[in-house]
């Protein structure tokens, strides 16, 4: 039987009705895990000894799920897909994982990611690259690559992710599923391996907005261990879910207008065409949608702002990785040599490059020019988006420049304008905005996605808009087809 392709509500009913047991679901999920591991290399660890739990009235109880490998999980290897932590078994679990456990959720595997969340390809994890279940010649994007691949391949209804730039929302688009990161601080980051603390969000990858609402309801909550978390007990995402939402949306002309891309290829053209078709459909179902214009120079600054801030925070956040307290310790003579040896051997070149840049922009003589300016522009972008939220319920935009990229694709010339289309989801991290990606169509048989981002604390509004659009498209609960 193929239960793992079902939604959380369906599975819960089957469990309650005694049609299937938690044990059965876990068995199936583990079998699929091994299949998906062989096919797509999505996991760092598969928990073959995972056990069923009693089914309660809790929707998540007894249902298996996956955990991105940068969540600290007690007694279970947690590597962040990095050689620096290839042998690290934590003695405490992340708050979000404890919350899911308390709802009866059963972890069955730990998913591969780009090393410590850095990178958007799913190719930099220490256990090798993750293949896209829609087409093995293509990437899943990243960094939550393994989670996206596993959910799309029907290993379980959901897996946790984390999102510093677009690490949940872009892989979701490339894998034809839903990726949601709630408002900053709604889910505690305690136990999430940090990449860039001011941008890091926990979140989830699912196959429907409904499932995303159910899972985040369970993950969220104020946490005494995370000062940036806040009390969201009055927000009940699933309970208030509405597939007949109305509202006023806007999209940004500079990002969505094909005329803005003089070197557009076929995929980009089809992608934007499809997006405008969906916009028309949204209008038809009652959304009021306007085109707005945002200063191109400001938009062009997005990738640089992201790089400067995230790399700077990352150099500092990962200074605890010395191999002295945890991680495979170097056997060199002095502590300086030990640290150097451990870091040199175990970090991938991509991370080292980012550390060098991060360190450079924080140096006393460069800090104002780079780091402080990046923070100023971050503020300008967030202010601009907040201004939009005064008039609009949410901003709706296409995700990326098309479907998943080929591994051996020509290194496309990312001109500045193209880069904006690739990187604009980072605004959601700059402002801590609730942001969700849902599948919005197909190009050459491969899924593409759209994103809805709203103002802080308006998670319900954002989910309801997304659920309404989802209900009027044909991609809810879709699984990867093909995988050849």
């Amino acid at each position, binding site marked *: 039987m193929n239960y793992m392709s079902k939604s959380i509500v369906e599975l819960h009913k089957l469990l309650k009705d005694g049609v299937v047991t938690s044990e059965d679901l876990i068995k199936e999920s583990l079998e699929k895990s091994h299949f998906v591991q062989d096919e797509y290399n999505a996991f760092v660890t598969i928990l073959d000894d995972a056990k069923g739990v009693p089914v309660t009235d809790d929707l998540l109880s007894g249902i298996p799920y996956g955990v991105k490998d940068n*969540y*600290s999980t007690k007694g279970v290897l*947690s590597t*962040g897909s990095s050689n620096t*932590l290839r042998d*690290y078994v*934590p*003695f*405490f679990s*992340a708050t979000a994982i404890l919350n899911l456990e308390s709802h009866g959720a059963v972890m069955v595997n730990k998913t591969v990611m780009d090393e410590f969340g850095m990178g958007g390809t799913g190719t930099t994890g220490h256990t090798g690259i993750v293949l896209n279940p829609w087409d093995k010649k293509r990437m899943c994007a990243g960094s939550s690559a393994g989670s996206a691949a596993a959910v799309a391949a029907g290993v379980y209804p959901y897996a946790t992710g984390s999102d510093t730039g677009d690490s949940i929302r872009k892989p979701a688009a490339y894998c034809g599923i839903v990726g949601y990161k709630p408002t900053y601080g709604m889910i505690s*980051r*305690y*136990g*999430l*391996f*940090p990449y*860039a*603390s*001011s941008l890091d969000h926990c979140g989830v990858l699912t196959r429907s907005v409904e499932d995303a609402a159910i899972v985040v309801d369970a993950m969220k909550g104020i946490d*005494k*261990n*995370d*000062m*940036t978390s806040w009390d969201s007990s009055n927000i009940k995402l699933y309970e208030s879910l509405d597939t007949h939402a109305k509202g006023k949306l806007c999209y940004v002309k500079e990002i969505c207008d094909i005329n803005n891309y003089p070197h557009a290829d076929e995929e980009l053209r089809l992608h934007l065409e499809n997006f405008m078709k969906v916009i028309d459909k949204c209008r038809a179902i009652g959304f009021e949608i306007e085109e707005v214009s945002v200063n191109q120079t400001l938009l062009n600054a997005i990738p640089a702002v992201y790089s400067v801030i995230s790399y*700077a*925070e990352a*150099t*500092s956040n*990962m*200074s*605890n*990785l*010395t191999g*002295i*307290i*945890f991680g495979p310790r170097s056997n060199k003579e002095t*502590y*300086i040599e030990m*640290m150097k040896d451990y870091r040199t051997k175990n970090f991938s070149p991509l991370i080292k490059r980012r550390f060098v840049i991060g*360190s450079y922009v*924080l*140096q*006393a003589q460069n*800090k104002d020019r780079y*780091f402080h300016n990046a923070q100023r522009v971050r503020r300008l972008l967030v202010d601009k988006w907040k201004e939009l939220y005064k008039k609009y319920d949410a901003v709706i935009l296409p995700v990326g420049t098309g479907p998943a990229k080929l591994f051996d694709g020509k290194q496309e010339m990312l001109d500045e304008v193209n880069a904006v289309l690739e990187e604009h989801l980072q605004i959601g991290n700059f402002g801590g905005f609730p942001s969700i990606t849902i599948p919005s169509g197909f190009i050459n048989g491969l899924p593409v996605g759209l994103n809805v981002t709203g103002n802080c604390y308006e998670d319900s509004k954002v989910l309801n808009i997304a659920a309404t659009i989802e209900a009027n498209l044909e991609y809810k609960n879709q699984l990867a087809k093909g995988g050849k």
Partner: protein
Amino acid sequence: MDYKVMIGLEMHCEISETNTKVFSSAENSYKDIPNSNIRPVDMAFPGTLPVVNKEAVKMALKASMILGCQLPTHIYFERKNYYYPDLPKGYQITQETKPAPVGSYGLFKYECKGEEKTVRINNIHLEEDAASSDHYGSFSTINYNRAGVPLLELVTEPDFRSADEAVAFLETMRSIYQYADISEADSRKGQIRCDVNVSIMESDKDETDPKNWGTKVEIKNVNSFGGVREAINYEIDRQIELKESGKYDEMEQQTRRWDEDSMSTIFMRSKVDAIDYKYFVEPNIPKFKLSPEWLESIRAEIPELASERKAKYISQYGLSDYDATIIVKEKDISNFYEETVKLGADVKKAANWLTSVILGYLNKNEIEIKDIYLTPKMLFEIMDLVESGKISSKQSKEVLMHVLDDKKEPALLVKELGMEQISDDSTIREIVVKVLDEHPDLIEDHRKGKNTFDFFVGQVMKATRGKANPSLTAEIIREEIDKR
């Protein structure tokens, strides 16, 4: 040539009076067993986050108020990034850039050898202590108990003109930390550590013009006040010698360390090798606003400090400057005195007991007042026994020493030692009459002007084994002689 000395201090004092560490829920207390006082965050396990201890912030603000510093409107923290084995995160959470520190730009008065002096405070800030390490021949050990202990760093302008002034200031600060219940400020527990900067200039030059200032030499990690005095004096001599031998101009701005064994300062690094700490705002601690009400409540908690108590003892109690100074030097001793006075003891006699008897005992046995059996109540009881004539003042000292050594209540000791004075008129009179009856010839001698009076007193004392109240005895003898 005469030289003027400019000395500035950085005084680090651990806050010992909070229950927990400054960003961690681990207990803030000295433990003998290494690595027994730690939480995951103290060892920087991946995913752990700092949580600010409000009590520590409160104590830091209290210190800032006492120093007359400007208070910030908001509190936030910064990261100081550097690698060292005793710094598990690879950065220290601190406050550096104004206006972040809990206090800046204070003007503070202290006393040095009876003279009032003023020092400008640059800032006082709250930060976390590092772990402690011990170095052995071929290996080092790290103890994380100290990692995360709250630390106050106080930075002065170079306003001290001698080692005496610098040490007098440090002693004043230690007393303030003790009186305000911020810290035990015990350098033997490593709670106080100082960095000292010293420069000399020709004394006839204008010290307000920075052009005339000498080259600054910073001496790191001087861990006792005695060390501060010696390091400063050593450094002054060393710099004068360089001047005199014409080598001063070759000396670069540098950091040295104080070496206890050789009693000298040793070159560590020159200014050009100064570390760039790449400060940036700690993203995991939201900036928080200080409410005027909270600040007011903190101000109201500032207790009477040593200088105020001393003034009270001199002007209201009539103690000598010398005695007052001795009593207020240690808070526990001053508190002992205050409590004894509160019970109704004579202020001068109580002071006398403390300075002449009790402090001598403490010094001789190298113990502290909180370690002795004697309480203010017991001291008052002993003083009262003398007042009411139950024991002689000579006996009272004996009783006190027995209280200290035998750990018994004064009343019980008086009985056990058979000291209770006979102050009953009829008992003494009976003995007096008997003595006089036996020596009629001596009464005659007395009347003739011979000194036989002391003989009678002696006989009464002999008969009562010294317990008869001497003044009452003398009075009765006089009365009885007159009757005859």
